[in-house]
């Protein structure tokens, strides 16, 4: 277990270094690089720009600049926002909760619905239900999330008036119920694609398990169909799902960005778009790096969880 853990941590570290190199390359790709903020100031001269570049250490060789940038990231100095001069890390953590709330709710919903559809599809293979679920999943994967959000707002907020059209709470209310009712539509919209993904994988995983010997043994022992399904089939089919959760994380995070925009949800996605609009590159870069680190941590945790549950991996 310890060797596996060490190996996995080492891999994550290498990935983190590569991620930071890509991030640094994009940072220097910005028109005028990190200087773009000053280049827009009226009355700015070439000499003044060069002076600022020297002060910021931008006239040093790129590898030195990169190491300096990484060192500051490690110390928690992620730069300051151009907009209000607040530290980038503070701004991001202020928006983290809203995004995590949305992502966790939607993931729980999509795993519950997705696994149910997947198991039912696998046990009743080639039935009308299975066929509808297969086609439905492919259509769900093809619908643009933001457009599905617009349609949902039109139907449930504007026409039926059942749910609020956006925001995280009503100003002045902010009761638990108020939060909950604002959460329903964005989390379901974000869940749609994931339900499709989960149900497909769960169907395949269940079909893989259902024909194995230990399931036949369980049946032969005289266990009820339900008990065989719940204890022996689902238990084993769920295992690859944990790893899938790690793989799906970038998609869910990207989906959250779009969903937040449509529902004016005050999370990281909204912050990202607002910052792009203001050319607030430190925040944009901070969010890019932060989301990649979040993804790396997520997949690391998923892999460790799989190793904890499945002895074949940590021993093999």
């Amino acid at each position, binding site marked *: 277990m310890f060797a596996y853990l060490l190996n996995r941590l080492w891999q994550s570290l290498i990935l983190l270094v590569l991620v930071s190199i890509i991030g640094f390359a994009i940072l220097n790709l910005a028109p005028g690089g990190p200087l773009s903020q000053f280049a827009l100031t009226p009355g700015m001269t070439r000499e003044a720009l060069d002076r600022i570049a020297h002060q910021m250490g931008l006239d040093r060789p790129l590898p030195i600049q990169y190491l300096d940038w990484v060192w500051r990231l490690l110390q928690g100095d992620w730069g300051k926002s151009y907009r209000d001069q607040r530290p980038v890390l503070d701004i991001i953590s202020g928006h983290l909760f809203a995004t995590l709330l949305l992502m966790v709710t939607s993931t729980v919903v999509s795993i519950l619905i997705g696994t149910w559809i997947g198991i039912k599809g696998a046990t009743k293979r080639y039935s009308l239900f299975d066929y509808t679920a297969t086609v439905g999943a492919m259509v769900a994967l093809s619908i643009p999330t933001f457009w599905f959000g617009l*349609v949902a*707002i039109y139907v449930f907020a*504007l026409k039926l008036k059942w749910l609020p059209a956006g925001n995280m709470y009503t100003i002045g209310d902010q009761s638990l119920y108020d939060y909950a009712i604002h959460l329903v539509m964005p989390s379901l919209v974000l869940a749609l694609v994931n339900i499709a993904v989960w149900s497909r994988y769960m169907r395949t995983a269940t079909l893989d398990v259902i024909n194995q010997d230990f399931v036949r043994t369980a049946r032969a022992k005289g266990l009820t169909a339900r008990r065989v399904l719940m204890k022996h089939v689902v238990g084993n089919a769920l295992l690859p799902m944990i790893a899938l959760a790690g793989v799906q994380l970038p998609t869910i*995070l990207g989906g959250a960005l*779009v969903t937040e925009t449509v529902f004016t949800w005050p999370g990281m996605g909204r912050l*990202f778009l607002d910052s792009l609009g203001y050319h607030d590159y430190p925040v944009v870069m901070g969010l890019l790096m932060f989301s990649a680190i979040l993804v790396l941590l997520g997949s690391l945790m998923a892999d460790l969880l799989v190793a904890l549950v499945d002895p074949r991996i940590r021993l093999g």
Partner: protein
Amino acid sequence: MSDAKLSLSTDAATHWWRSRTARRFMRHKLAVLGLAMISIMIFACVVGPYLLPYDQLFIDLRARFAPPLTGAHIFGTDPLGRDIAARLFNAGRISLLVGFFAMVLSTLIGTVIGVVAGYYGGRLGAALMRFVDAFLSFPSIFLLLALAAFVQPSPFMITVIIAITSWMEIARLVETEVRSLRERDFVLAARMLGLPNAWIMFREILPNAIGPIIVAATLTVARAILLEAYISFLGYGIQPPLPSWGNMLNGAQQYLDKAPWLAIVPGVAITLAVTSFNFIGDGLRDALDARSDLN
């Protein structure tokens, strides 16, 4: 032996539509439906603008927010009184072309990196694949938007940055295929003949991995159309007055109550196009995968 091979290939060349792959594809009802839908859409986008009485840029302020089927405006008009049908067909040309060329470019990048990583393996292969993993760690929309904010948003640059953010899956797939083909006898034979590495990689190994690449490329068209729609909707993709399916939806949210067709019409077009390519990809997967015969 060369005679047999020759006759086989001429047979396949004259009757490709009667080949096993084509027959299996035609048995896949959804794939045929997808092929039909996308053919109709391409035809409509090519021919449509010539048949409609309105130009996509013709502004008629008296006819603002006309609902669908008002006079000759079959899909209604937008907040400036422009004909939505005319804009939809012209937007389709842009969106489909961006999707297609982004697929070509990303398949090219992914295939070259995948072949090199899979063929050489070892440290070079491992380094390239870790690089692929690192790219996959960024949510692609974040990466795409960050890049889009830095470049001139012309259709060409949008195509390039979509390709830059979608080549990784193909690289992974090709690497796996090539790695499994590398030790096969025909590759050893080619090595013994002293053929150059580049020849072995792209002329000997790659043709054997073409099936999965075609499937992945088809699905990449679907993905590229979606990505273009996402960034254009958010205002960083194709810029007006040039219409794309994504940027037609850009202002739709604020008129959702008053003019829902502004959102519904382009959204349905995107969904239909993307669904079609996903169906076709699924059909190709079944048709090209010899193992699926066993099921």
